[in-house]
């Protein structure tokens, strides 16, 4: 089954992106596809390449990036939401790309389920 995922909050302040990541990982481990994760609202902050949490804490920016590399997940940051909040090519972490909100609607159209995680 194809799961599209929408992430509405940044890392750390809200648990939403942790839960989204754990869901994506569990779905992939079960043999499902996660063709796209779309980052909207403060979710764009998951793609901030300057994020450097303490060594004993999880690094969600890197965890998402590794998922993209290992499992072919398309990590899309909303261009308009990203511009507002300071996620542009200069601050974009590896594994993510910036595109339009149409990519969220397409994920909803093309996946069997659209899962949403936010505040």
């Amino acid at each position, binding site marked *: *089954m194809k*799961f599209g995922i929408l992430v*509405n909050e940044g890392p750390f302040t809200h*648990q*939403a992106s942790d*839960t989204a990541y*754990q*869901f994506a*990982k*569990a*779905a992939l*481990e*079960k043999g*499902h596809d996660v063709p796209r994760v779309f980052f909207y609202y403060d979710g764009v902050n998951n793609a901030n390449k300057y994020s450097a949490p303490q060594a004993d804490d999880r690094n969600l920016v890197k965890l998402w990036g590794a998922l993209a590399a290992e499992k072919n997940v398309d990590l899309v940051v909303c261009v308009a939401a990203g511009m507002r909040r300071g996620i542009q090519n200069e601050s974009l972490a590896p594994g993510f790309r910036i595109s339009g909100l149409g990519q969220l609607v397409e994920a909803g159209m093309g996946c069997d*389920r*659209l*899962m*949403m*995680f*936010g*505040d």
Partner: protein
Amino acid sequence: MLHTVNKSPFERNSLDTCLRLAKKGSAILLIEDGVIAAVKGTVQSAKIEGAVGNHAVYVLGPDLKARAFSEDQVISGVKVVDYAGFVDLAEEHGTHNAWL
């Protein structure tokens, strides 16, 4: 339909709205701070105790454990699942409706 609620019933109105707008027979999964609603013996417990007759109610075990709730504190009729179980529920119950 699979409904998820991720906020404490003490703090927000999202569980109330979920219960008002969830169709009878649909599934409800409590996650993150939403797991507080699944705990016995609080002044909010009646909400989920009332919901188990109309809905299949689940709670995310990893979030319970993080907040130091044991499975025997969970309201009777509520099933505990892990992230893999969350994926199964999403597969089984159709459209996801997150009450944010």
